[in-house]
């Protein structure tokens, strides 16, 4: 992954609009947060392979990190804290936000084909 290039990401978001896509959306502070700091809370959520179509989407910055919003017919997909991106060899738009130590805090990925579901034991 590399640092977000807003124009490149926006173009890819536009390209994937108005068609069936699969979305991976995730945020996490890790399963050990309250183990290492008893005052901390373990919080996380993910949805893998949400099958949606969005009318339009936008990547917005207020210095530092980015927010991405995708407008659905009946709702929204939203991620905050995105810092890095990659368009991989399958043409998928992978976006993530990492902390200072490089740990993933948030991820939003959009693909025309489903993301792997079962562990790829035979890969």
């Amino acid at each position, binding site marked *: 992954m590399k640092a977000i290039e807003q124009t490149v990401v926006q173009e890819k978001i536009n390209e994937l609009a108005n068609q069936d896509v699969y979305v991976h959306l995730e945020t996490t502070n890790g399963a050990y947060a309250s183990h290492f700091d008893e005052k901390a809370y373990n919080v996380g959520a*993910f949805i893998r392979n949400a099958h949606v179509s969005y009318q339009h989407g936008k990547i917005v910055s207020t210095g530092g990190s980015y927010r991405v919003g995708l407008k659905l017919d009946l709702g929204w997909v939203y991620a905050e804290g995105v810092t890095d991106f990659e368009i991989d060899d399958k043409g998928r738009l*992978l976006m993530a936000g990492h902390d200072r130590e*490089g740990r993933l805090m948030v991820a939003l*990925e959009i693909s025309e084909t489903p993301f792997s579901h079962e*562990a790829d034991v035979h890969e």
Partner: protein
Amino acid sequence: MSNQHVVVIFPHPDDESFGASGTISKFRAEGIPVTYLCGTLGEMGRNMGSPVFANRETLSSYRKQELTEAARRLDIDVELLGYRDKTLEFEPREEVADYLLKRLKALQPSLVITHYPGYAVHPDHDALAAAAVSAVGQMDESLRPEVWMHAISNHHEEDLGEPDYILDIEPYWEQKLAAIQAHLSQADGMMSLIDNHDKKSEQTARLKLERFYKWKFT
């Protein structure tokens, strides 16, 4: 030492290295075969390498390679169970136990090492260990291996007391370090935590003692 076989059951690539690789090395030095049944590929891990080299979609491939390398360094066999990271607690417990039971019947271990259900912090640890205990409990008593359990939670000794086995793995420290370092995407994050910890020597000392509770089947 004939007919001995140790089976390690943990959910993530690197659980074996951080939690039990000194003990594993000790058994290997005694000529006892060790098989690691690894539940998932850790594909939902937060650590992506330092500096970052993996992403959510490539992490599983890296971690699979890292596990292969750690297993090579520890001289153990690995079998992947094919579950998905973070989801083990939502699988029907008895189905996971049945699956483990099949594997155990084939491997005929004399000892199973797993986590201590309820005291292992990560939900995958608790869930897979509970299924492992259930699987071993279903085995015929004459074939039933011992079960050693690794507890992680901060205050587990208040409930569980002293562990039954405390292994000083100092003689195998180099092997343990090498196994941990094989997990490139994960090791840096963890080891820098230790290096930067204000109680570094205490943290390192903790890694040099591997402690296990013995499960008592009633």
